[in-house]
């Protein structure tokens, strides 16, 4: 749109189109950022102040208190769902989901790309049909299956059904296909078997891809809501995102809603995945935009 392609930065005259570009970007950034800043501000004040004045442009001194009550004080009847417990469950779900997805996906993709299999086409279609139907449309029967297998309120029940789709498998299949053919030939000439080739050559070669997949899958797992809502009913098994609903109900019921504590918990639910995405931005963007090819 502007002549940014060739002229060096220093020599460019200040044009009103550049000012407009920045203005629009700043407005966009504020649109994204203001809600978070509001949450952040209310975690530093007392609940009474929030109720009386709403969010303000000052930073209070209640951050520590709110943090302690969010982390260690339990809501609900069992006294088990402290912020710390929910944080742990969220980490187990996020990491367990990402690892499970990557390990199973890589194994299946390796089998599909590098082996002569009689029923390869059938396996391929069986696996990739799962890309078509999200968990949301088969949520009730999935719950019934988990119930029949005695998986309610277990980490297995929380994680494994979510792994039942082929996104990672598809991703790694695409990547393996782009690996030069000469590598396998060379490995075979050197006498390396399929297991050795996989562990010593293919896995190290996929490092960036694995990292990108891990970030995307960690965020995806951490942010799961519907499935954890159905499969966990015991408060000790709640994740932070699953606990959000209870927070809103707590805010409805009590005389002085505990905004400081609730907003702090929301903040704790937001920060880990957001930080992961920000710090590993380039891997994350690469993984995301290359998975559609």
């Amino acid at each position, binding site marked *: *749109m502007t002549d940014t392609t060739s002229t060096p930065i220093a020599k460019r005259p200040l044009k009103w189109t550049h000012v407009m570009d920045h203005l629009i*970007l700043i407005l966009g950034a504020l649109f994204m950022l203001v809600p978070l800043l509001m949450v952040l501000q209310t975690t530093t004040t007392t609940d009474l102040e929030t109720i009386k004045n709403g969010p303000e442009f000052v930073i209070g001194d209640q951050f520590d208190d709110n943090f302690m009550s969010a982390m260690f004080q339990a809501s609900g009847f069992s006294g088990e769902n402290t912020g710390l417990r929910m944080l742990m469950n969220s980490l187990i779900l996020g990491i367990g989901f990402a690892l499970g997805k990557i390990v199973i996906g890589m194994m299946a993709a390796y089998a599909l790309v590098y082996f*002569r299999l009689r029923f390869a086409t059938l396996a391929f279609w069986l696996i990739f049909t799962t890309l078509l139907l999200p968990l949301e449309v088969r949520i009730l029967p999935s719950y019934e299956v988990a119930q029949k297998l005695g998986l309610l309120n277990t980490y297995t029940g929380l994680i494994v059904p979510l792994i039942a789709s082929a996104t990672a498998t598809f991703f790694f299949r695409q990547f393996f296909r782009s690996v030069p053919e000469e590598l396998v030939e060379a490995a075979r000439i050197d006498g390396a078997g399929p297991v050795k080739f996989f562990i010593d050559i293919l896995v190290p070669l996929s490092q960036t891809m694995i990292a990108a997949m891990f970030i995307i899958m960690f965020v995806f797992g951490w942010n799961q809501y519907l499935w954890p809502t159905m499969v966990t009913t015991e408060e000790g098994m709640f994740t932070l995102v699953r606990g959000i609903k209870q927070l809103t109900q707590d805010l409805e019921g009590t005389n002085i809603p505990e905004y400081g504590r609730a907003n702090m918990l929301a903040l704790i639910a937001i920060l880990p995945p957001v930080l992961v995405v920000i710090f590993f931005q380039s891997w994350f963007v690469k993984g995301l935009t290359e998975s559609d090819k």
Partner: protein
Amino acid sequence: MKRAGFATRWLPILLLLPQLAIIAVFFYWPAAHAVQSSFYLEDPFGFGSSFVGFDNYTHLAGNSEYGRIAKFTLLFTVLVTFFSLALALLLAVKADNVIRGAKAYRTLLMWVYAVAPPVAGFIGLLMFNQSWGPLAELAKSIGWDFKLGVNFGDTATAMVLVSVWKQVPVNFIFFLSGLQSIPKSVREAALIDAKSSFRRFWDVTFPLLAPTGFFLLIINITYALFDTFGVVDVLVKGEPGNNPMTLVYKVYVDGFRGNDIGGSSAQSVILMVLVLALTVFQFRLVERRIHYT
């Protein structure tokens, strides 16, 4: 499959087994079960079920409430898709233009990707809080008495706004990476041919972005239909009542709360067919894309 593959028989089967086992138990079994139970009427007290053929489907067709929810879902999907795509495209074009602060803008505009939909809904609840929410105050200042959870239109507005906020980053990331993959030579040629930046955008940039746009269109429709479950659930505070809801939320309400397994399964099957149609459409687009480039 690679030309130079391994010929081992048992290893690929072993590698595929975990993936196949998980999708058999947690994908095919539930999906088949949903189709099956959509033809049955479950006894509300759990004393078996009886075959009713297409009754559950014809019942839905004649149900005015279901029709209303379907219409709302359509409107909701159109609004969310349009606004999040348009806003993201605008921001991506601007972010591609600027040189100063490009990285900072990119980070500020994409971090919301990692926020879970229900947490976004929770922030929406705070922003529209009756007594102190900043957006409710803003609405009041122009004479709009915003009543989240009470007034149908107001709740729907909040749902659309929160869902757009949550979806802009994904679209932004894809549009920006699409823009950055446009070769420099094309840009320079356009710069010589067309003086007005407006013309350059519509005649050169926009057509080159079309494949990304089509891909994102499907992604956004799927998002609005399914992933907004958390936004809806939190914004209506778990009490559907007269509040707006989407088709997926209705599946959950009828099946999980109302115990109408047959009706809920029939709704699931309708959604499955819808997603299948969308995906087939998408695959055909992708195929075409490979043909031309």
